């Protein structure tokens, strides 16, 4: 029998696996457009400089070079429109105009007949720079005499996220967020103990295996893009504003994407490649290397200061959180990241007096951007480390200390947010039990919990078409980047329409065909697009059953869709027969539209967050005392996902998020010195390899069935990135008495901390 067909029919197997495992899956970087040129980007070698002049004549004279785009072209291209773009602040030019702001800032782009020639032409472009003072550290960039990266703050409202940012004019601060409830100062003054701790979280990169890639084809008054974009519709809107072309004439096609993790969300290289196609008057493909992707975006690094007050009984009385985030040269989605970093530092705890403050700051470094759970990992690393510090000082068991302060289901993390919708104490107990069941010792393990509020905008639609043979086509702009969203949508359609999974296809996302979806990110697709597909299929189901009732008698409610047709009081009828009877020929189809907006369910979908994404981590570590090398040996990850839509995919999301976190916990940091990134390549920047994965990984997925999505599902896939760093750090503190407050926990840092502990022990401290 046909092995492939068999596998497709098992229900648990995703449709993309077969294509991917045989090398047939088409990624954007595999797309070939007839007549396309190959583009390369010339990047600034300096962290901050004026551009005195650019001479492209030698490059243009090279055989095979078709066009070179520089800032000098923008007056003609933009023709009175703004040639700058951004998500919160219009701070980024299509290509550098008279100034560069970080090493890697695009200065020019070459389109040539082949990549070799384009690459060689970069060397022939002569740029005369006038260096400016630079700053790469966020705290230094906040100083009054710091070099200013942007002279004005050109704010945009409601462009990608609701609202805007709160920059401080005349400084590098592009976001300043503040929040308070209760009286935190009073709490500090009456507390039994007050703990002040600072933590640092490094600059880390997404390192998706497929680098950023775009093919842009600019025609008279239309643009077609093949892009690895997580938000094709935002790309479409940004290009429309930049180039003055109607949105309906801008088409963004998104084949399989080789990983994103937020690094391809909002808008990235699409405007630059489109401008290069305009200049070359031909389709142009730009496929970055991973090294260049590392110079395109990264996670915002952070300094987190926590001040926390407790009473003698180990109850939290008040907490102040101050986060300073290094936002890089352009704001991108950094303003949202800074807000989330502050909120996600609260944790699933009752804190009667709370003060939050966060800053995102321009520096001469790679632009900061969204990365799996924006702001979450720094926030949870700090808060959950401090929880253990406090428990240790009060001589309370760290789990007991957490449970004394933990919110029950329905409790308020922050009064303006939806009450927490999962049983966190129950999750924590499940995690500890799972560690013991696996042969570990939960009493000696590192433990951390996290509650994050996904920044989901509830705006997305799907079209579903059911053919006369009952095969089903789903049209969506939710992209497939490995998370398995398309598999989930097929499962939803299969259930509502009563057709086998094998007959349900998700079309390649294409803005010309599929309706609007906000972004594939923030763990939102299962809920938002899942519901949209569910609604669309329900519409088809209603129509089919109504028609069957009209033609064959009885009530519509007495009919049910079944494999190949519809079953009713008088037996089964194929959809084909139904259509012939209804329309006279064996043709036609049923079309359903599902639309989710913030007004959905009487406006409940406008309430933030749509659901809580929570996580518990319990882990055991080993340390090589001689070298300071740390290994994670056994790990338990718990998430209440509401409903598991595909077990292997869901577990895979959890495992992948956790091991990504192992990267920022033990290995990863983009290091700057003298304004230069020292390790922006896969050789020098180490992401976890297979031998660094723990010997044992146990995922516990709780199905409480009360999430807002299909079947009671919640979103998932980001939560498990949160507890890892504090789990490992807390485990080291518990086992070895070392507390390192700066990530990654490199052998050197850990070794020095061990030596300090040993020295203190010898001195009899």
């Amino acid at each position, binding site marked *: 029998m*046909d*092995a*492939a067909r068999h*596998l497709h029919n098992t229900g*648990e*197997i*995703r449709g*993309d*696996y*077969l*294509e*991917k*495992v*045989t*090398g*047939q*899956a*088409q*990624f954007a*970087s*595999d797309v070939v457009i007839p007549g396309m040129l190959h583009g390369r980007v010339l990047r600034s070698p300096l962290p901050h400089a004026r551009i005195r002049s650019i001479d492209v004549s030698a490059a243009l004279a090279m*055989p095979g070079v078709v066009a070179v785009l520089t800032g000098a072209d923008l007056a003609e291209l933009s023709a009175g429109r703004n040639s700058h773009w951004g998500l919160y602040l219009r701070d980024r030019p299509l290509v550098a105009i008279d100034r560069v702001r970080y090493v890697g800032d695009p200065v020019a782009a070459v389109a040539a007949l082949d990549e*070799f*020639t384009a690459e060689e032409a970069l060397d022939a472009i002569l740029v005369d720079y006038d260096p400016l003072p630079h700053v790469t550290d966020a705290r230094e960039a906040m100083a009054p005499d710091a070099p200013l990266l942007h002279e004005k703050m050109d704010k945009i409202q409601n462009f990608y996220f609701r609202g805007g940012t709160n920059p401080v004019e005349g400084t590098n601060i592009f976001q300043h967020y503040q929040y308070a409830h209760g009286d935190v100062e009073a709490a500090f003054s009456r507390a039994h103990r007050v703990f002040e701790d600072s933590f640092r979280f490094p600059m880390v990169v*997404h*390192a*998706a*295996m*497929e*680098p950023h890639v775009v093919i842009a084809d600019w025609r008279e008054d239309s643009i077609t893009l093949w892009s690895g974009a997580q938000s094709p519709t935002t790309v479409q809107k940004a290009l429309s504003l930049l180039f003055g072309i109607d949105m309906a004439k801008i088409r963004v096609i998104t084949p*399989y*994407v*080789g*990983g994103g*993790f937020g690094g391809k969300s909002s808008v990235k290289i699409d405007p630059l490649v489109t401008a290069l196609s305009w200049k070359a008057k031909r389709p142009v493909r730009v496929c970055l*290397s*991973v*090294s260049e992707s590392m110079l395109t975006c990264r996670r915002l690094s952070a300094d987190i200061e926590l001040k926390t007050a407790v009473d003698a009984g180990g109850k939290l009385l008040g907490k102040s959180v101050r986060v300073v985030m290094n936002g890089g040269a352009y704001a991108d989605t950094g303003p949202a990241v800074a807000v989330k970093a502050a909120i996600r530092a609260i944790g699933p705890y009752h804190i009667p007096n709370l003060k939050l403050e966060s800053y995102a700051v321009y520096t001469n470094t790679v632009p900061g951007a969204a990365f799996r759970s924006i702001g979450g990992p720094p926030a949870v690393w700090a808060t959950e480390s401090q929880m253990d510090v406090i428990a240790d000082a009060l001589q309370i068991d760290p789990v007991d200390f957490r449970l004394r302060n933990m919110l029950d289901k329905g409790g308020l993390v922050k009064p303006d947010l939806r009450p927490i919708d999962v049983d966190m104490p129950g999750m924590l107990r499940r995690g500890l039990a799972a560690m013991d069941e696996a042969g570990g010792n939960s009493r000696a393990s590192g433990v951390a919990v996290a509650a994050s509020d996904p920044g989901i905008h509830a705006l997305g639609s799907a079209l579903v078409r059911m053919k006369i043979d009952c095969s089903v086509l789903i049209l969506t702009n939710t992209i497939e980047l*490995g*998370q*398995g969203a398309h598999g989930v949508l097929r499962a939803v359609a299969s259930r509502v329409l009563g057709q086998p999974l094998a007959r349900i296809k998700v079309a390649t996302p294409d803005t010309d065909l599929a309706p609007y979806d906000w972004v594939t990110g923030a763990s939102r697709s299962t809920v938002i697009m899942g519901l949209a597909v569910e609604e669309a299929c329900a519409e088809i189901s209603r129509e089919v059953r109504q028609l069957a009732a009209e033609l064959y008698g009885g009530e519509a409610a007495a009919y049910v869709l079944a494999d190949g047709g519809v079953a009713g009081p008088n037996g089964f009828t194929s959809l084909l027969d139904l259509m012939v009877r209804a329309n006279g020929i064996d043709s036609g189809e049923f079309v359903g539209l599902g639309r989710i907006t913030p007004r959905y369910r009487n406006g409940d979908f406008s309430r933030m967050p749509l659901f809580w994404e929570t996580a518990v981590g319990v882990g055991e570590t080993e340390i090589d005392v001689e070298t300071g090398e740390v290994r994670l040996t056994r790990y338990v990850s718990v998430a209440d996902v509401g409903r598991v839509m595909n077990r*292997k*995919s869901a*577990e*895979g999301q959890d*495992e*992948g*998020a*956790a*091991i*990504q976190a192992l990267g920022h916990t033990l290995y990863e940091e983009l290091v700057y010195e003298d304004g230069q990134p020292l390790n922006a*390549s*896969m*050789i020098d920047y180490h*992401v976890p*390899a*297979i*031998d660094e*994965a723990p010997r044992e*990984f146990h995922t516990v997925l709780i199905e409480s069935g009360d999430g807002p999505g299909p079947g009671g599902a919640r979103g998932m896939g980001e939560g498990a990135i949160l507890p890892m760093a504090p789990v490992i750090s807390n485990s080291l503190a518990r086992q070895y008495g070392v507390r390192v407050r700066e990530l990654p926990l490199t052998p050197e840092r850990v070794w020095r901390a061990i030596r300090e502990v040993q020295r203190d022990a010898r001195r009899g401290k």
Partner: protein
Amino acid sequence: MNDIAVMDVTFTLNNEPASARIEPRELLIDVLRENFGLRGAKRSCDLGVCGACTVLVDGLPVSSCSTLAADVAGRSVLTIEGLGTPQALDPVQQAFIEHGAMQCGFCTPGMVLAVKSLLAAEPSPTEEQVRHYLRGNICRCTGYVKIIEAVMDLAKRGARLKTNP
């Protein structure tokens, strides 16, 4: 452009004779992708450290992004397209599907070929050997858990074959 020397390279590609007229500087990955339309080998780090471009040359994994096409003259190259088809999957491909050992899929062709090569040398490797052998194949999505499960499942089958051939 016109004065660059060209050369003919003849080799075995996916068990069939193949030849290509190439420039001496051309890399194997480009010749496979552009001349032969075999796009399963992926360019990622472009530095020979991530494994996404892995193909087998005489049965051993090499990074096609840092191998000159000229160097495979007279040798046998196996790409993912030659390993199995949707209609006739290789057991390694089958195991990856069954265990959900992939997400975005960009590393998958290289990973599958590396596993193929490992199992050819050692049909029933220990987990330690698997972790050592696959260290050069980076996956950023899965956290490797399901990849290890898939390979250890194959190793178990390999061990059974050893004892009951």
